């Protein structure tokens, strides 16, 4: 499965909710304000650091750039919208709105 998360982890529990249900091997895609979870060294970085042990985690490149997020958590991958499409082709999607 592909799980999309579009909320800031500092303000909203969507990412935590997602990670509680996601099964090992599921893929997580961060987009919109969700990409703030991809930044290294923040008070919420541990969420993704833990998630990376069980999941591939992507963040939309254009959303990272828009927010000036330079240093990603090690193991995070950035994805273009085209790669987002590829992920959707490979997995059914649940949006954690």
């Amino acid at each position, binding site marked *: 499965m592909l799980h999309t998360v579009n909320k800031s982890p500092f303000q909203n*529990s969507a990412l935590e*909710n997602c990670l*509680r*249900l996601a099964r090992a091997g*599921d893929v997580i895609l961060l987009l919109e304000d969700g990409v703030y979870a991809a930044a290294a060294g923040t008070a919420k970085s541990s969420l993704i650091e833990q998630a990376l042990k069980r999941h591939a985690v992507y963040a939309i490149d254009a959303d990272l750039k828009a927010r000036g997020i330079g240093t990603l958590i090690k193991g995070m991958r950035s994805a273009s919208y085209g790669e987002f499409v590829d992920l959707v082709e490979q997995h*059914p*999607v*649940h*949006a954690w*709105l």
Partner: protein
Amino acid sequence: MAGKGKKVMVTVRKAPHGSIYVQEGIEVMFIFATYDMDLSVVFLDDGVLALQPGQDTKGLGIKGFMASLGALVDWEVTNVYVDRQSLKERNIAEDGIISIGKNEDTDEPIRPKVLDSADIAAMMAQQHSIVSF
């Protein structure tokens, strides 16, 4: 009809009344139930708050949707689940959640089925599509 079409799930994760998502989610359930799909509904996270008993929206000047939720089974929305941990965190008793219909024979109330997160996750993984609110 409990058709044999594609597996489609509706998830409700937002709290009721502060926004319209739960209500418009219920409208989706009602319509989808008339189509040839294998429909399931899951309440989790703040979505379980919609199942709290005794909700009365009169004081807000809005009709609310408790009547609709109570008639899900009548509308053939029968595969309805709720996440155990979400209920627990919100201090809602599993046997106290609202009923979504009645058993035609025994007149017993039918309630959403309480499941562990792992069961919900497994069910989610089997879906063709998931509509989330």
